[in-house]
């Protein structure tokens, strides 16, 4: 995390009344969506999961937008300015295979078992220990990430618009609070779909003009190859095992660590993502949610990578002591340099919308897990449904206030926050191994889930904080160490699960119906909805199409 408050004067955007009009209209629409969605909330299922009734294109775009928060956009542009075309790995190998796997393989179990959250699946498949552990950790992580998002928003808004940090934190927090409390998940998802299009309208002009300013793709490529070396403009150059590259990772750790463990952990078990698919109207739509999201994901990399690369050309010293600009400033810098009033307002709106959507995705998944998984199962059980809607609204307010608190904390202890974030990120890794073994191995016992989670998290943390940070083995960068820690956590979690399963009782077979590969719950099969048999709605075709397209995208960047 960065705290570039001293950049304020330098990056200040020349906004005028026109830009503020555009921003103001957006805020009005956001609230309007919340108010209009309010009348659709009749049951707790409406509030937490949109009544499982949204069409696939809506949940698919929300799925991608929940990931396309502003920290992701600014961060991936920064990554590109620093590491070059290696950034494509976070998209093509580090997202697409996992998204397709979620849609084709895992979604029938998730959606078909009618669970309302990722932890609830663990409750059905394993036991209360695994359920409570994952619920509490997820809820805590969601609040932390929402707070960090809010803090990042405050820094950027202060630098770009000159608002004091507390104003930005309180205003953004209040809007998110209002529209989620009113309309629940439907309102969060609708705002995410809107944000998706606004952020595209912001990034496309920046990319086009940025490219023009450096002489097109050829000019960009020639300049950077000369200044940073040929590998900077390739995806795989210099990633041989033992060879040196700025990323600090080789092809094996990229494929296994990023492409397999980290990415599958994030995309298939992070409830802030999976929740979008669970709100789809039927199994086919739920399966298509991550698959529809995969196609924009393949191409969005160009809209964040090119601005990052352009910034590396225009400010050769970016990110070093010779320049006031940090890598994270790549996109704001191009906005300031190139965008006239009007489009500038769209870009500011897009960035703010992306920050708010990133926060809202976490808040709307937090309130669901806290209400249905923690409160309704362990604290106040068997109350009427209206009670849980009221509680959901209350906990949304508490969650937003807690993330506002976290944001203020982050502004004074930013190191502690980034440390905590790393810590929570290690929890995703064993989640994936527990899911994958639980879904494919009937014998995995009830207790093995909990111990797999504990062992995997511990192993990843030991590898990162002891072995890497103490320098016991040499890994050249934090990113590289992250990949290796993820692999260590995956292996440890898997080994412990198998070992515990061999010595403890398996779950009775009749309780595993619909949760493990090769089983079906009686009475759960849905007839396909009208029109879902069209060829372009076949999940297998969409999924394999995305994988082939992502692989093909690597070709021009591999030689």
């Amino acid at each position, binding site marked *: 995390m960065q705290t570039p408050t001293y950049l304020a004067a330098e990056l200040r955007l020349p906004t005028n009344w026109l830009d503020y009009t555009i921003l103001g209209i957006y805020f009005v629409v956001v609230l309007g969506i919340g108010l209009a969605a309010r009348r659709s909330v009749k049951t707790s299922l409406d509030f937490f999961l949109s009544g499982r009734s949204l069409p696939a294109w809506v949940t698919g775009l929300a799925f991608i937008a929940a990931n396309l928060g502003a920290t992701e956009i600014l961060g991936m542009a920064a990554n590109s300015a620093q590491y070059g075309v290696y950034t494509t790995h976070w998209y093509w190998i580090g997202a697409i295979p996992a998204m397709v796997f979620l849609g084709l393989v895992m979604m029938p179990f998730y959606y078909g078992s009618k669970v309302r959250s990722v932890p609830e699946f663990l409750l059905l498949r394993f*036991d209360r220990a695994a359920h409570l552990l994952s619920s509490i950790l997820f809820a805590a992580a969601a609040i932390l990430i929402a707070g960090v998002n809010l803090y990042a928003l405050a820094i950027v808004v202060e630098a770009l618009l000159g608002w004091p940090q507390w104003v930005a934190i309180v205003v953004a927090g209040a809007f998110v609070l209002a529209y989620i409390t009113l309309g629940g998940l439907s309102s969060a998802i609708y705002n995410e779909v809107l944000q998706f299009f606004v952020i595209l309208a912001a990034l496309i002009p920046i990319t086009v003009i940025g490219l023009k300013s450096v002489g097109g793709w050829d000019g960009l490529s020639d300049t950077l190859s000369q200044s940073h070396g040929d590998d900077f403009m390739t995806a795989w150059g210099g990633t041989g095992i033992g060879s040196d590259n700025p990323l600090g990772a080789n092809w094996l750790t990229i494929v296994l660590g990023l492409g397999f463990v980290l990415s599958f952990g994030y995309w298939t078990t992070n409830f802030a993502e999976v929740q979008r698919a669970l709100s789809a109207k039927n199994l086919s739509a739920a399966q298509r949610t991550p698959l529809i999201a995969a196609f924009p994901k393949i191409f969005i990399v160009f809209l964040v990578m090119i601005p990052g690369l352009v910034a590396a050309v225009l400010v050769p010293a970016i990110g070093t002591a010779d320049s006031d600009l940090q890598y994270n400033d790549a996109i704001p810098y191009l906005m300031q340099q190139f965008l006239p009033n009007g489009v500038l307002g769209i870009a500011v709106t897009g960035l703010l919308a992306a920050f708010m959507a990133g926060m809202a995705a976490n808040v709307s998944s937090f309130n669901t897990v806290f209400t249905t998984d923690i409160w309704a199962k362990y604290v106040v059980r068997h109350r009427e449904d209206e009670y849980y809607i009221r509680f959901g609204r209350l906990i949304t307010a508490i969650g937003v206030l807690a993330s506002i608190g976290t944001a203020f904390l982050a502004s004074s202890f930013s190191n502690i926050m980034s440390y905590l974030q790393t810590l929570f990120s290690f929890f995703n890794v064993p989640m994936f191994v527990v899911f994958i073994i639980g879904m494919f191995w009937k014998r995995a016992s009830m207790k093995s889930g909990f111990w797999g989670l504990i062992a995997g998290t511990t192993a990843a943390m030991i590898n990162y904080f002891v072995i890497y940070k103490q320098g016991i083995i040499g890994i050249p960068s934090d990113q590289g160490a992250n990949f290796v820690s993820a692999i260590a956590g995956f292996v440890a979690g898997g080994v412990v699960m198998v070992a515990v399963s061999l010595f403890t009782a398996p779950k009775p077979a009749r309780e595993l119906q619909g949760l493990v590969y090769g089983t079906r719950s009686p009475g759960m099969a849905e007839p396909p909805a009208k029109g879902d048999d069209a060829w372009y709605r076949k999940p297998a075709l969409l999924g394999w199409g995305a994988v082939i397209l992502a692989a093909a995208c690597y070709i021009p960047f591999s030689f």
Partner: protein
Amino acid sequence: MSEHFSERDLQQEVSELETRSATAARLFDIRRIIGGLFVLYGVIVTIAGVVASDADIDKAEGVNINLWTGLGMLILGLLFLLWLKLRPTAPPPPAAVPGDREE
């Protein structure tokens, strides 16, 4: 509730809530909002492009970026409204019979 949760209970609970859910019947169609907002933004930004000063155009490397972005947003907005007109919101499903989610 017994020591381990019965998934049948959870599934029954969710199925029961699904039959009472109001989202499908009462939630507005987002295409109208996207269409409306992008038409409005498109018009505003296109006008900014039509009256763009030389300084604006020079800043954007000689491209009248407001004009092009505005037109792009306008077209996107109109496409959403057209889509809504051609394929209107599906009528809400008839009073749900448990297990029957066909329209």
